[in-house]
């Protein structure tokens, strides 16, 4: 039997290598991550919108250069691949100290928490879309379901946030379950349209079903969570630092993100994830190898929706106010954009996509009028020039390569196409 090359790169499995080498790799990886994090912090610290635009352009150019250095790029990828644990550790520490760095700036901490909420939501869509390949252009429905459920439970029945949070997730999962049934029969564009129609329809209902959602008045005065008697609206003190109350929400989202990532990772690397992927690749073949399409599609929709709902519930209690305008089509598109820009199926990529899509537009508030224009423009540009997303998973890159290969094969037939010219 031939030698099987399990990791086709310079870095072998960890146990083949000396301790010194491993330590050096880990340090190197830590260096990269800290460097990227500092770049990110600098971006956040720039207050002037024009200066920020310039900075973004600079970082963009740097990223482009980075891509032109395949060895550096590959080295980083290999490091991440081999030292996953180290990466998780470093990222956790960096993200945990974020509120300490911006202790003087409550707005940035708030922004961090808001981004965190959308990371959870985007990771939810990543399960449905990235893993199982089911397009869902109405993800705001689940975000809304979670937000309204948890908010109304707290406002009307005085239900505690810690009960409302999972309930919000479950109600959202139910809404995912609902759309899964019609979605079983359609694919591709049609599936996108069914979910888009579902999203638009639900938003009209949010506005008009006043008994459930208070209509356009919205749900107001949603209480903030408390934990062990500590109110989330009071500041916390750590090591003598006084941190703004938004830090409470920030850490809450951080913990929830960790849980969501762990669940995503475990699902992906299990039978469940493999079944989803098989279904995404070829549902007829998957069906013939014992994969119950109905069950697995419903499961993918519901699981994704659950995290949408969790994000919604936290959102409701953090903002304290829920309005149908929060759940319009643009919300769905933005969530979708987070997944696409991040790179479908890539857990860290999607998380980064969500952070960028929340933070950059917020920091460009000075451009108020042009914000949406820039959003649309950059989305279109990214789709055209980097359709696999900014941080694709390895597998996703392959998928696009294969599509490209197919295209190339087709295009090679083009010479023959003009044997008999039309004009």
């Amino acid at each position, binding site marked *: 039997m031939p030698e099987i090359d399990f990791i086709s790169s310079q870095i072998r499995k960890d146990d083949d290598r000396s301790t010194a080498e491993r330590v050096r790799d880990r340090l190197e990886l830590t260096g990269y991550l800290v460097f990227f994090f500092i770049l990110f912090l600098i971006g956040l610290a720039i207050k002037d919108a024009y200066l920020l635009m310039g900075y973004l352009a600079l970082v963009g150019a740097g990223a482009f250069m980075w891509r032109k250095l395949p060895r550096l790029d590959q080295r980083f990828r290999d490091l991440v691949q081999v030292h996953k644990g180290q990466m998780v550790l470093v990222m956790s520490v960096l993200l945990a100290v974020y509120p300490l760095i911006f202790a003087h700036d409550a707005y940035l901490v708030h922004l961090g928490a808001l981004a965190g909420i959308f990371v959870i939501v985007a990771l939810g869509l990543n399960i449905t879309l990235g893993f199982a390949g089911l397009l869902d252009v109405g993800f705001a429905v689940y975000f809304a379901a979670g937000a309204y459920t948890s908010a109304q439970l707290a406002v009307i029945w005085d239900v505690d946030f810690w009960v409302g949070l999972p309930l919000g997730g479950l109600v959202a999962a139910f809404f995912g379950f609902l759309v899964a049934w019609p979605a079983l029969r359609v694919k591709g564009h049609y599936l996108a349209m069914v979910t888009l129609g579902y999203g638009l329809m639900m938003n009209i209902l949010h506005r008009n079903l006043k008994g459930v959602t208070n209509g356009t008045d919205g749900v107001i005065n949603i209480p903030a969570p408390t934990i062990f008697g500590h109110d989330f609206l009071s500041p916390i003190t750590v090591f003598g630092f006084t941190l703004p109350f938004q830090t409470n929400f920030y850490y809450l989202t951080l913990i929830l993100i960790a849980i969501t990532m762990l669940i995503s990772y475990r699902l992906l690397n299990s039978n469940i994830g493999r079944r989803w992927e098989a279904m995404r*690749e070829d549902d007829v073949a998957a069906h013939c190898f014992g994969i119950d399409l109905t069950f697995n599609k419903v499961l993918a929709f519901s699981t994704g929706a659950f995290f949408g709902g969790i994000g919604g519930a936290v959102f409701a209690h953090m903002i304290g106010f829920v309005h149908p305008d929060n759940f319009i089509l643009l919300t769905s598109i933005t969530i979708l954009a987070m997944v696409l820009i991040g790179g479908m199926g890539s857990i860290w990529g999607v998380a980064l996509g969500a952070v960028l899509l929340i933070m950059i537009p917020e920091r460009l508030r000075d451009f108020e009028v042009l914000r949406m224009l820039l959003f649309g423009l950059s989305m279109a540009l990214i789709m055209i020039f980097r359709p696999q997303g900014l941080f694709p998973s390895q597998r996703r890159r392959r998928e696009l390569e294969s599509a490209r290969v197919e295209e190339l094969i087709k295009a090679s037939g083009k010479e023959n196409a003009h044997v008999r010219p039309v004009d």
Partner: protein
Amino acid sequence: MTKDPRPSPEAAGADQPILRIEGVSKSFGGIRAVQNLNLSVETGEVVAIIGPNGSGKTTFFNLLSGLYPVTSGSIEFDDPPSSLVGLPAHKINELGIARTFQTLRLFPNLTVAENVLIGMNRHLNGGFLQSLLRTPAIVEDEKKAEERATETLGFFGPRLLSMYNEPAYSLSYANRRRLEIARVLASRPKLILLDEPVAGMNPTETAEIMEDIKRINTMGFTVLLIEHDMALVRGVAERVIALDHGTKIAEGSFDDVCNDPEVIEAYLGRGAAAAGGAAPASDAPEARP
């Protein structure tokens, strides 16, 4: 016209055929793709279905594997018998039938190993909660599954093993066909359905696949295959069934079927039948290396 299927000598232990099909018909709108088909397969047999294009062979496989619902008739599988009529494809696979596809249907962006692991799906448990908790049982299961996957890929020597972690789309055409077979083997089914396993392959590759099918059979698998390549059919099939216009027109040994006037007529038309040529055999490429 249709003879009773003779129990094959290899299936000595089996009292009952593993697959019993009676009066199966399938119509699409007004078109009757399969008509009143009777067929049985003994455990351990290799049975080939031949017939001109459009004679209903692939439709028949789609009925067997649950992709199309049967219009009428009964399909019974295994002992104790379970009816396959009305079952969805995944249930049929769980009972122990696995198939390949004439038009390749691999999972192109999954690795070779993952394709085979999906083939094993019916043997892998591990529900939602166990996967989330990553119980030791699941971890153990996965490890075993990967070992089996490697073992299964080893059936084709280094051809697939060397591509273990490569995506399926990067395989050559012949290797894709091999991977389809490996995926079926991984399923360890009681009945293997091969839909034109050598379509598009060159003579050398065809001969190789022929040996592979023989090996599969000696490993104890029961095989039902559709094939146009008469050299392959002659080489592997213990029994041949000829279809035309969705009905069975002949059944028996390769030579019997090939000399059956109806079969010759189906392939070459009325005149040829009168001339009495051994039609389908002449169809075969010169396959022997």
